[in-house]
């Protein structure tokens, strides 16, 4: 019997000829990624048991994206500890503050994460790596097991295959598709299970997506409990295809298959509370905003900012609105600077921050006050995600966020619809 992409990568990593959904496996990861917010805790837990070294330090990647500009004495102390732990353990890849950028993005840019790879990571949005056809599994606090013992147990998931067809009109971005699809899945309207499932995308819409577009879909669906999102393999670095690039077999067993037509699809806004609380933008238009934010691991790539900057043109940010722009990676930031796009954002009145998570990581660098309203491309929007618990966090595509920042209220980015 054939296998899905996910099953092939898990089988190979587990040293097995084949696996099937429900199997308990101990995959051997090629990389283990831990972000700056968890290094100290992982080190303390292992030290308390007596570990002075870790298993396979050469595979370990520390990224610094949650606290890039230290905004508290605690963050300074944490940064110092992370540097000490990186030295003490001899980790193979240490990206300190100001290096690399967002750990869910730059490893694809620089080829650290490649198609066909299996890796473990602390943070759930490692699923971004499915955009290049790699399988990254979030292990959360169990990353301590992986650091100490080299692996941890997991369960082989079922796969849902979704074919996306059609070409949505102007003003529609892959984040819109992600919000809409998340809402359709969690509401049960698509009649399929999604929790702990892999979503494997295909179809002519997908074939035409850039890496940033793929990332947008990976990122949004992760928030509802999908285990992983996989696309056909691709290499952003131009590396040639090799035997590690895998696709599902023609006779692979998918738990369900869906085919969706996006032809008549319009921009969406996720209402405060969750990325799946998607409504057509028309239902949110007019809501006054205080804060807007472009960036995060869901919309932090060059194409996202270019699309927003093109929409912006020579317009200005509305008075009373603070727009925070956080390029996802150092390379993205440099390219935006080189091509004059950072200049365009700053000319319009935006605040540009260094690459990383930005305010999505608990409001760091750009928090919300009590009662404030934000619209952003953040990964998620639960209460208190970006500051005050009674702040309202709307999510939208880079185009809708840009249009809203200009209008001073939630606006429709489609041609002729934004009353800016």
């Amino acid at each position, binding site marked *: 019997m054939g296998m899905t992409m996910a099953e092939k990568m898990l089988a190979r990593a587990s040293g097995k000829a084949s696996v099937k959904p429900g199997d*308990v496996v101990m995959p051997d990861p090629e990389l283990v990624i831990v972000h700056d917010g968890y290094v*100290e805790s992982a080190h303390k*837990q292992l030290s308390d*048991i007596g*570990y002075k*070294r870790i298993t396979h330090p050469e595979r370990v990647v520390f990224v610094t994206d949650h606290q890039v500009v230290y905004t508290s004495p605690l963050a300074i102390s944490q940064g110092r500890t992370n540097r000490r732990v990186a030295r003490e353990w001899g980790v193979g890849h240490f990206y300190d503050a100001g290096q690399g950028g967002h750990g869910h993005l730059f490893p694809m840019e620089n080829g650290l994460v490649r198609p066909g790879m299996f890796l473990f990571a602390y943070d759930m949005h490692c699923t971004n790596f499915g955009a290049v056809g790699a399988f990254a599994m979030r292990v*959360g606090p169990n990353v301590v*097991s992986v650091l*100490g013992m080299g692996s941890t147990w997991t369960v082989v998931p079922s796969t849902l295959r979704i074919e996306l067809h059609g070409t949505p009109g102007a003003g529609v971005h892959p984040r819109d598709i992600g919000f809409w699809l998340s809402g359709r899945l969690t509401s049960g309207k698509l009649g399929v299970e999604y929790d702990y499932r892999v979503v494997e995308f295909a179809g002519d819409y997908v074939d035409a997506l850039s890496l940033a577009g793929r990332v947008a879909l990976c990122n949004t669906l992760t928030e509802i409990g999908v285990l992983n999102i996989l696309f056909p393999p691709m290499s952003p670095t131009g590396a040639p295809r090799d035997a590690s690039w895998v696709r599902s077999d023609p006779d692979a067993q998918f738990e369900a298959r869906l085919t969706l037509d996006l032809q008549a699809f319009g921009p969406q806004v996720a209402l405060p509370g969750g990325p799946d609380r998607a409504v057509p933008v028309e239902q949110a238009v007019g809501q006054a905003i205080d804060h807007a934010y472009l960036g995060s691991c869901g919309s932090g790539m060059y194409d996202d900012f270019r699309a927003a900057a093109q929409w912006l043109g020579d317009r200005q940010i509305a008075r009373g609105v603070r727009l925070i722009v956080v390029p996802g990676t150092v390379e993205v930031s440099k390219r935006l600077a080189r091509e004059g796009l950072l200049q365009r954002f700053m000319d319009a009145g935006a605040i540009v921050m260094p690459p990383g998570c930005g305010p999505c990581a608990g409001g760091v660098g750009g928090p919300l006050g009590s009662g404030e309203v934000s619209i952003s491309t953040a990964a998620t929007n*639960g209460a208190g995600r970006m500051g005050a618990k009674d702040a309202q966090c709307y999510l939208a595509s880079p185009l809708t966020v840009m249009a809203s920042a200009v209008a001073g209220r939630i606006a429709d980015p489609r041609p002729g619809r934004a009353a800016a």
Partner: protein
Amino acid sequence: MDWIKRGRAHVLGDNVPHDAGVMAFDIVLSRTTDPQQLIPHLFAEIDPALAQRIKPGDFIVAGTNFLAGKAHNAGIIAMKALDMGILCASMPVRAFQGVVAQAVPALVQCEAITEFVADGDELEVDFQTGLVCNLTGGATRQYGALAPEIRRMIEAGGMRGMLAAHLEAHPELAGE
């Protein structure tokens, strides 16, 4: 390890999330793993007085999708420190991995258990067989037992116990 436990039930509903449910998000973000810091905040977002009512050995009884959302473990650490057990209708796989890592005994396929158990009921639970006796109501229910390989991990002390055993087998990891 004694797989039969007796204690009082604290009943919650469906879809109780870890973040902003079992544990406030700002406490989660503090990344603390110190149970004494976490215990006062356990379930405070749902019922600020619940943590004070919980006695060591008690059970959390919940409906479907218990520990929903991001699979953080601050609340699970606190539950472990209180020697609690979990009975719920369902739980996401990733949350269950966290529960096993903390060596918290749990039956996670207890269909409609919130209709069988009321808040405050005295229970006796055999995690090895899946038998739940409601000592207050005088009835029993048979649910799915813990799988043998999961029991072995919990018996070993969860993640910490397995790490300790690994270190014993690989003393080079304890060297400078």
